[in-house]
């Protein structure tokens, strides 16, 4: 592998590890520093958000955490992929699987991010008074881009698995 790509792979591998450790760390700091519900964005509600207590509070936080969990899974696949790349293991079955899983992770992040708002609004609506219940849906441009990028990575993973197959077949020729 050319030196510049090896250096890039090492940098990305280190960055992915920093993100993998840093993201949960930041979340823990936020949860311990004050009202964890300040995490939950209720701007999408057109009526005042009701008082949220007990189980509903943790349900809202759990829903908010879903894209983060998908992100950790995606970053873990990146760590494995970049680790292989920095060691020169590029066209391998493991790399193709990690690439595909990375793509599926990006798609999951997009879908879960889209689902967070309706799920949270449903929970908030359940404890609201009659006439103040609603379900909201927000789809942003970045969600669409995540979906497209994730789908692209899945296809690249498939292409890489074909490259692995051809490489193995080529090795049988002298």
């Amino acid at each position: 592998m050319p030196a510049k790509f090896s250096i890039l792979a090492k940098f990305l591998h280190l960055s992915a590890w920093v993100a993998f450790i840093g993201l949960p760390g930041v979340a823990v700091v936020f949860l311990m520093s004050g009202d964890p519900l300040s995490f939950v964005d209720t701007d999408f509600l057109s009526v005042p958000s009701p008082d949220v207590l007990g189980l509903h509070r943790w349900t809202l936080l759990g829903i908010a955490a879903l894209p983060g969990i998908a992100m950790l899974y995606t970053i873990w696949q990146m760590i494995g992929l970049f680790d292989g790349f920095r060691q020169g293991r590029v066209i391998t079955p493991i790399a193709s699987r990690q690439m595909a899983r990375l793509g599926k992770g990006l798609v999951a992040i997009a879908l879960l991010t889209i689902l967070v708002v309706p799920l949270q609004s449903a929970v908030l609506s359940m404890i609201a008074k009659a006439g103040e219940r609603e379900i909201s849906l927000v789809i942003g441009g970045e969600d669409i881009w995540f979906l497209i990028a994730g789908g692209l990575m899945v296809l690249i993973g498939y292409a890489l698995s074909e490259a692995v197959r051809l490489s193995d077949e080529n090795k049988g020729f002298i």
Partner: protein
Amino acid sequence: MQIIVRLDVMLARRKMKSRDLAAAVGITEQNISLLKSGKVKGVRFDTLARICEVLDCQPGDILEAE
């Protein structure tokens, strides 16, 4: 029908070792060994041409259909 590799016969006739053939052709001794045992999927034409040039023979002297 199978393709039989008679490389060991040609090497014996030319009194050449596998190691020397590998060095002259530019492939590894392991690949020569795999070729002798017929455990390769195929041989590239340029590899076959170099083997024939080194052993001063025809492809038919090395490969046989059975």
